[in-house]
């Protein structure tokens, strides 16, 4: 580890165009369970990956094929390593059937391993697990961790806040394998039974929901820190994607303040929340669009947020609001090494086990 990679993109979204393509990666009985038109039609709703183009113009989104995505994103933007975060995996939180979620998670992992990791050496996978079924998730993590190209675990945001002991077996398995947990909002938050709510309830507009995505990070980071997850799992790291970071300075000040006022509610805390935040929490950059232009203002926000320890580049490619690497120019050049590869190298599982 060192300067092996110049630019790591921690938030790239591959796609399964046809859900039936995952069938070879699940037991026959489960294929039969899923093989009906309603499931396949629902799973095939991939329009948002076409950008604003209709299917007649763009028949297949760029993220349906590993070579196409490598050409249009990795080659064009000189990306040395890309963490694949399958949104169809993150969306497994919307299923009430935990066993089915676990089977689909495993099938997605099998599909992306075979189709994507084999296609280009620059790909790494965040292997997804079913949050509803910790025992099955542990088995999946142990199995996938044998592949050195698996660099993280994708944990869909489920009903219970992330500090719950429900997740302890999942965290223990990830910690043991040296894999960070990745969390990525899906846009269904507040819409289904089983998924987390945004603060204040369900909003009418997509714009509101987009603006409030970081609330999911704030809510779960509070829960993780105050409920002692990082005391129970001192080696665990948790990446929050698509929440950017400018909110985090004010947030951790408040965590510290309340930890001082209510220490008797959490006598297991050995350090102030800021310390846990800097050591265990990671945030990806996108969306950077609202960051003030100009080195000094953005630099001050980054400094107060401890961005040098916690923030890593994530493009969210190819969603319509993705950030190409030049978005990082909004941040001070002194931070570019840590943003472009340093934090990712010390967070993702990079080492290849012998």
């Amino acid at each position, binding site marked *: 580890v060192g300067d092996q990679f110049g630019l790591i993109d921690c938030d790239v979204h591959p796609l399964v165009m046809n859900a039936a393509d995952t069938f070879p990666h699940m037991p026959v009985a489960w294929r039969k369970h899923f093989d009906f038109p309603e499931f396949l039609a629902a799973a095939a709703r991939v329009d948002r990956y076409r950008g604003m183009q209709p299917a007649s113009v763009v028949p297949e989104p760029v993220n349906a094929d590993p070579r196409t995505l490598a050409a249009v994103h990795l080659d064009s933007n000189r990306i040395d390593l890309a963490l694949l975060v399958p949104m169809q995996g993150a969306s497994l939180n919307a299923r009430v059937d935990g066993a089915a979620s676990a089977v689909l998670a495993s099938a997605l992992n099998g599909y992306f391993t075979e189709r994507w990791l084999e296609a280009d050496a620059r790909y790494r996978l965040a292997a997804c697990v079913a949050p509803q079924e910790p025992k099955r998730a542990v088995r999946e993590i142990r199995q996938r961790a044998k592949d050195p190209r698996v660099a993280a675990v994708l944990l869909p945001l489920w009903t219970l806040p992330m500090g719950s*002991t429900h997740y302890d077996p999942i965290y223990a398995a990830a910690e043991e394998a040296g894999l960070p947990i990745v969390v990525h909002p899906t846009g269904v938050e507040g819409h289904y039974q089983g998924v987390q709510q945004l603060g204040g309830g369900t909003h009418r507009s997509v714009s509101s929901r987009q603006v409030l995505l970081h609330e999911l990070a704030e809510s779960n980071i509070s829960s993780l820190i105050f*409920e*002692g*997850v990082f*005391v*129970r799992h001192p080696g665990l790291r948790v990446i929050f994607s698509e929440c950017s970071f400018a909110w985090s300075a004010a947030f951790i000040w408040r965590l510290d303040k309340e930890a*001082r*006022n209510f*220490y*008797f509610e959490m*006598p*297991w805390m*050995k350090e102030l929340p800021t310390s846990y935040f800097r050591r265990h929490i990671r945030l990806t950059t996108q969306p950077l669009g609202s960051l003030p232009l100009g080195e000094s203002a953005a630099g001050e926000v980054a400094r107060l947020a401890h961005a040098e320890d916690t923030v890593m580049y994530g493009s969210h490619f190819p969603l319509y609001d993705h950030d190409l690497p030049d978005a990082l120019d909004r941040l001070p050049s002194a931070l570019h090494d840590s943003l472009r590869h340093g934090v990712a190298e010390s967070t993702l599982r990079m080492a290849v086990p012998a």
Partner: protein
Amino acid sequence: MTPIALERRPVGRVEDFTLDQFRIFELDGRSIGVVRTRAGFFAIKNTCPHEGAPLCRGDVRGTMLPSSPGNYRWGREGQVVRCPWHGYDFYLESGKCVYGEVRDRAIAYRIEVEQGDVFIYIKPRRS
């Protein structure tokens, strides 16, 4: 530097003190609370180092001991006073803030009981 000799002042008999009830003494212009708790006798200045609240109007209590996540352990009963204004806890023995959230210490005084008489040790201050 010559250490200033502490003066010993009587503050009453043991039976004058109701359990966990501070009695306030004005000694050389200082307001000092003396209390008998199940952990012994303590004397502490009646001023919170945080924002100057009358600390001895707070409750005498214990505190949560360090523990593993999801478990609570209560201890140090009678060794802690909670400030009535902002709820910060201080050890009666040392004046130290329990969780360190207030950096300055409350001022604690040495106290002794001899044959039922209670004495406090303070630096004399002449006006």
